[in-house]
């Protein structure tokens, strides 16, 4: 499959971030929380891809991002602009599932440089921008992991 041009550049791709797997980490450099690059690594290898939900399809169905959070006690939800994703040589594809019609894939190799662009895209003034924040957000400075 190739990039789906019916998914507009102005749309957003929603991705869940686990709250209890150190994908949200404290950065003393930024004095703020950031995301690990692992939040944007491909699980699938052939083709290389990770899963997202396509916001325009949600909207067409009269649904909101709350419908794709799965478990608000375990995940937060971020949004990547489709235009930015395509600029990183990624293809955006629809992969609807019976219980997840807005499901899609971001297809393409994702070296750390691409993950960094994605992290920057969900960060403004060192602050992570959530569509739905993870439970307990904002978290206390210094991190949740006991060091």
């Amino acid at each position, binding site marked *: 499959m190739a990039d789906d041009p019916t998914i507009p550049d102005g749309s957003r791709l929603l991705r869940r971030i686990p709250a209890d797997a150190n994908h949200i980490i404290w*950065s003393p*450099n930024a004095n703020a929380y950031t995301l690990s690059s*692992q939040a944007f690594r491909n*699980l699938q290898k052939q083709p290389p891809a990770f899963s997202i939900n396509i916001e325009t399809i949600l909207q067409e169905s009269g649904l909101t991002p709350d419908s794709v959070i799965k478990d608000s006690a375990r995940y937060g939800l971020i949004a990547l602009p489709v235009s930015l994703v395509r600029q990183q040589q990624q293809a955006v594809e629809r992969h609807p599932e019976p219980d997840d019609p807005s499901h899609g894939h971001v297809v393409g190799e994702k070296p750390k440089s691409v993950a960094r662009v994605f992290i920057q895209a969900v960060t403004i003034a060192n602050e992570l921008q959530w569509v739905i924040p993870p439970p307990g957000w904002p978290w206390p400075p210094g991190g949740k992991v*006991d060091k």
Partner: protein
Amino acid sequence: MMLLAYDIANTASCQVGEWRAQTPAPLWREASAWISSVAAQFSQIQKLQPNWDSYGAMPITRRAVDAMIELLGSVMNPNAPAPTLVPSARGHLQAEWHMKGIDLEVEAIDPTHIEVDYRGPGGPWSETLGVDLVRLVAAINKLSAP
């Protein structure tokens, strides 16, 4: 280089790994700060169930834990700050530091395939390392400086 070995008690209630030095040295007893942190993080990470990221992520394998332990034992020093251990959806581990003006990510895909991404003094570099970990040791040493 020191190598640290560990046994994780395989009981339902035991959550903490036991660390045992294979080559004892007084110097490594002083490294208890980062070792304790890493052991606690391993304990938490190994609780992750399949699909922990909601996208089909694999649980972290024993092989992945062993690979990370072997790696840390080879590159860390007693003054090194503890990394944040981050699970990969494919079942391996990444160690990260974001401090002292350095952003360092070390992904231990297997014992001879270590992906390193460094941003900090001396300029950025990304490299896949095998048995030669000199550049990574140098990066850790920069993190260890007061």
